Structures are given as C-alpha cells and as structure tokens.
C-alpha cells in the first residue's frame, strides 16, 4: 500500500464517521438534487441532449489538433495571444512573466480548477503578489487556507456559523453575520480589489474554435468584473475544453447549468474573443490564453480513457456519488475529487501513486447515469483498476493472492480439500481488516455445495 493510499484509507474512515460533516453534506446535496430535478424539466428529452453533447465532444476530441489550431488562428487575429504549456511549471512561468512585465501587485481571480491544478496562488504569493479569489466560495476557502471542497461549490462543507466566524477572525467583520450580510462584506472587500488589480485571471468553461472565443459561466458576476477592470486578462485552460463552434453553446450552457446547479441557465454566460477592440469603451488591453497539457495528452493516448476528456466540470457525478457523500471532497487529496477526479487523477499525477482512487467507488453507476456528456465513469474506474494491475502497479502480495485464488477456485479437488472451518479461518485472517468492523464476512458452510449435492444424490440413489 502506498503512503497516499494509507492516508486516504485513514481519512476516509474518520470522515465517514463524522456526523456533523455528514449532516451538512446530506443537507446541501439534497438541495442540489432537488434543484437538479427541477432544472432538467427544461429538456424534452434529456437523454437525446446528452447523446448529442457526447457526440460533439467525442468528435472534437478526435480532431483536437485541428480545433486548437483553428482557435489559435482566430484568437490571434482578434489581437489575443496564445501560450502553450506542456506542464504546470511552463504555465506558471508564463503567468509570472506577464505579471512581472506589468509590475502587478494585485491579481484578481475568478473560479478556476485548472489554476488549482497548477497551484497558481502559492506561486504568485511567493512572488509578493496579492492574489485574490473573487468567487464567494473560493474567497471563503482562501480565507480558511483550504483547497476547494467541490469543483463547483468550493465551500459547500462549511456551515454559515463557520463562515461568519471566519469573516470575523480574518476580515474583522462583526460576529454572527447572516449569509446575506456575509455576502455584502465580501462584495465590498472585493470591489476594491477589482479596481486595484493589474491582472485578472480566469479559467474557461469552453473554448470556441470557430470564433477564437473563451466562454465563462458564473452566477455572481465576479468573472465579468475580473475581465472588465484589470489591464490584462489571462485565461488558463486545459486543451480539452474545446467546442467546434459558438453555436454549440445553445446546448452546452443549459446542460452545464442544469447539471452544475440545477438552473435552466446560469446568471452570466460570457464569451470573450480578445482584448478591448477599437471603439469599445473599456476592457483589458491584453488578453492571453494559456493552453495547458499537463498530462491530458496522456489521457488522449489511451483510446478507452480518452472519453474522460469530454468532461465539462459540472460536478454532477460528485453530487450523486455515495463514496463522495461519505468521505467528502478533501479526502481525495486531489484537485479533482469525486468520480471524475478518481478517473483522471491517476493520469495527471501518476497511476502508481493514485491507483487507490479507482477503488473509491461502489461501481453503482450513478455517476455514469448522471453525466451530461456520456462519460462511462464507473466503467473507466474499473478499466483503471485493470490498467494499474497490468502496468505492474499492484503489490506482490495482491498478485500472489489472486494467483492462489485462481488456482484453488478453478480446481474442484483443491477447493474441497479443506472444510468450512479452515476456509473461514483463512478468509478471516486475510480479509477481516479490509472488510472492516461494521459488516460481517460471508461464512463458508461446513461442506461445499458441490460436496453436499453429491452426498444428497448418493443418498437418493441409495434409497431407490
């Protein structure tokens, strides 16, 4: 067992028994579920919509090089600049260089999981830059010094009392504020930052090849402010966020809203095609799009796992996952948690160190059923288990155990060589630890079914 796996096991065990955590998560996810049920009523045939979306993504990913070049060409024509980054360091260096060139002391950010993936905040902070998260949930997490708990609802695990305490301690806000008052405090604090910042950094929900556009979805308006006031707008995005056309948004925006937050459509869906144009009254003078690989071409190279690149990061698979509900978002210790995180993290951060995430699933298939772009999530978790073993990442003990199991279970004589007592003793010694204290191991009968059947037939025959 790797050290990461040991930590995962221990933290999962503790979290699953944390009743306060469970109460909050259950309440919040119940609300998500209710909203989702209502949101999906807008579709006449949700399955058809999902199939279409999956087709669009699968066709796009199959011609990714073509669309990336088309995007680059169109975005460049409109005055933007594309920067390619093979890994996190290259992306960080590029952002560092742009910020240094503008002598940036304040950087505002809107919500972006890719910037979490490359650990942008610590990189900029180390360079003396005041980097401020402006999405309310991310702002709360930043104040608390925690990574996001959920890819769409970063502070979902915090009670309103906890947030009030945090604002009191960190921002000198009066104690015991309500969610409305807390929101107002954040609004006022962050308005100053939007005006001060030299650089605004956002992620991208979609890249649009045909117009060289970047689509950003949000409810709060912080991404719009991040892209209005600062002189420079930097977009950091994975290469897989591509859609062929701006016209695809007519389906992808509602799909994202319904699966992400149960809305028909999010409050602000924006498309950016470059820096401020001649004749426009405001907007950044420069716009950059950083196209990040960071392991994604590795996923692409696997024809089966490839479909995980369809993901639009709606978070629906987290919301329905029984494992996520029990262990929570932080226990995964990965940027992307829940089923989709368990699928892609081994590719992004190493199969050997992260293969245990493939087992963080009951294989119930709820994730696959809810996915708006048809990713066979639980199938891929199973596939990753197989890949890990065939890639010789399994332990020697595990390999020996399966070999022994195979030998015994495929040979009737061996299987009947010992009685139930011995079998129970062996199985108990081998598996009781993993099986846990909360459920009973199956018990072998004294004699195997095969032997009992034979004896019964013999008796019957004898009786005739």
């Amino acid at each position: 067992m790797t050290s990461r796996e040991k930590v995962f096991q221990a933290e999962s065990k503790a979290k699953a028994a944390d009743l306060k955590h469970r109460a909050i998560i259950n309440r919040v996810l119940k609300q998500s579920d209710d909203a989702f049920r209502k949101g999906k009523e807008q579709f006449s045939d949700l399955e058809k919509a999902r199939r279409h979306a999956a087709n669009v993504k699968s066709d796009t990913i199959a011609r990714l090089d073509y669309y990336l070049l088309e995007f680059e060409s169109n975005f460049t024509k409109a005055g933007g600049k594309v920067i390619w980054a093979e890994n996190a360091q290259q992306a960080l260096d590029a952002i560092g260089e742009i910020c240094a060139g503008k002598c940036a002391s304040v950087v505002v950010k809107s919500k972006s999981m890719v910037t979490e993936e490359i650990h942008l905040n610590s990189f900029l902070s180390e360079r003396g830059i005041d980097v401020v998260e402006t999405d309310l949930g991310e702002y709360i997490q930043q104040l608390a010094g925690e990574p996001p708990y959920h890819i769409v609802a970063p502070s979902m695990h915090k009670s309103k009392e906890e947030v009030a305490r945090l604002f009191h301690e960190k921002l000198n806000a009066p104690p015991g504020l309500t969610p409305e008052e807390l929101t107002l405090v954040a609004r006022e604090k962050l308005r100053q930052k939007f005006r001060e910042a030299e650089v605004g950094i956002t992620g991208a929900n979609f890249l649009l090849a045909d117009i060289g556009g970047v689509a950003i979805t949000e409810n709060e308006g912080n991404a719009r402010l991040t892209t209005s006031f600062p002189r420079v707008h930097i977009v950091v995005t994975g290469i897989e966020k591509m859609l062929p056309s701006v016209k695809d948004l007519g389906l992808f925006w509602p799909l994202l809203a319904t699966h992400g937050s149960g809305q028909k459509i999010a409050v602000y869906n924006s498309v950016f095609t470059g820096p401020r144009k001649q004749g426009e009254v405001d907007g950044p003078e420069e716009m950059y799009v950083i196209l990040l690989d960071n392991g994604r071409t590795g996923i692409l190279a696997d024809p089966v796992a490839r479909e995980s690149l369809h993901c639009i990061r709606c978070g629906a698979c987290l919301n329905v996952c029984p494992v996520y509900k029990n262990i929570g978002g932080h226990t995964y210790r990965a940027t992307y948690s829940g089923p989709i995180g368990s699928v892609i993290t081994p590719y992004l951060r190493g199969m050997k160190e992260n293969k245990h995430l493939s087992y963080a699933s009951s294989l119930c298939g709820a994730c696959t059923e809810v996915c708006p772009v048809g990713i066979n999530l639980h199938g891929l978790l199973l596939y990753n288990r197989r890949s890990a073993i065939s890639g010789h990442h399994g332990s020697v003990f595990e390999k020996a155990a399966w070999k022994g199991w195979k030998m015994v279970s495929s040979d009737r004589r061996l299987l009947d060589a010992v009685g139930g007592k011995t079998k129970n003793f062996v199985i108990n010694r081998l598996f009781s630890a993993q099986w846990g204290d909360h459920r009973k191991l199956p018990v072998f009968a004294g004699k195997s079914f095969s032997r009992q059947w034979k004896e019964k037939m013999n008796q019957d025959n004898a009786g005739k």
Partner: protein
Amino acid sequence: MDNSSTRKNILKKIREALTAPSVRLLPESSDGLFYRKDDRSLLDRFCTEFAAIDGKLEVCREKDDFHKKLSEIRNENGWQHLYCSTASFRTDFGLDALPFTGGEVPESASAVITGCECLVARTGTIVLSSAQEYGRALTVYTPVHIVVASADQLVEDIGDGISKIVRRYGRKLPSALFFASGPSRTGDIEKTLVKGVHGPVQVYLFLFAANGDYVTDQPGYQSKIIEL
C-alpha cells in the same frame, strides 16, 4: 517568450495519441430539438421566465409610460442618480429631460440605464455586448441595471441569440458578449440564495410592446402593463 517548441511538442503528442482511433464512438445524428415545447408567444414566455429568475419587468406602450414608471420606481427605491451612457437613448427617450439622469461619473450611480442586443424568451436572458456604449463593466458594477428594449428584439432561444449576434457583427465580433439572466446571485453559503453578490442586486426591464403584442392569459402580468 518563444513558445514554438512547446506548441510543436503538444501538437505532436496529440497527433500521435490520435493515431489510435477512439473505442466508443456514439452514432446517430440529432435534429437539435432538446427543449420542452411551449406554444405561448415569445413575449409571454419571456415574461414568465424573467419573473422566475427575479427580473422585474414593466411593459410599456409609449415613452410617457416609461418616464412615469421610471420616476415612480426611482422614488420607491430612493435612487439618487441614474446613469445612461448611450447618447441616442438619452435623446430618443428624452432622458435628459428627467432631473435625475445624466452622464456624470458612473461610480456614484445608483442605477444604470442601457439597451441590449436581444432578449431570449426561453430563458429570460438579456444579451449584452462590449461593442455597445455601456461596454463591459457598467452593467455588472452598478447596483441596479435597467434595460430598455422593444418586443421585436425577442428571440426564441440562446442559439438564436448567438446567431443574431453573429449575423450582425460577422467576423468582427465584439470582444465580449454577455448573456445575463436576472440579478447576480450566489448559493455558496449553505446553498442560501443571496442576490447581488458582485453584479446588480436588481435587474429591471422596460419592454416596449405595440398594442396586441402583449397577449397573456396569466393574470399576474396584466397588472404590470402601464395604463395609458
């Protein structure tokens, strides 16, 4: 910074990866009809949807209605200063005649008055663009956004709104397009809905509709028509 070798490497990796064909190709084409049908008029549907996302709608028939209603709402809310950057608007709607509007520093404005590119009936969405005189920041930074539009700006769905913009601007798209659906909101603290987190707390729409445009059997909206 020279980025050409990185670019080459990534494209090479993608092309090599794609030599292995995808395993699971989903067949079939689609007619592109995904949403529940609604036979009501565009205007009726817009009214319902806009109200559902907490937008405030006033249907007007004439300029005087608009002035009267705007003054009332201003008094009710105690707004000091309303800002309108669109010169043609100020002339067309006679806004300069109203004592409380003007082109002063938007920083102090309680509310901003703008037009829009179009309105989307299915989702109650107001489509804005940076090519217009209000630009990017004004409509999201000011606490209240007041939109003035006419019923002929209504389109069916998001896709139609996009097509309309693409037809209007061609290859010279504005640097930013905003599909804004109601006031800014968040649910980040225990999923409690709070309006006006970064963007406007209230969004008003004064919609000019000709007589006969406004056919509805929903009693709730009838009262909002401004009496002539």
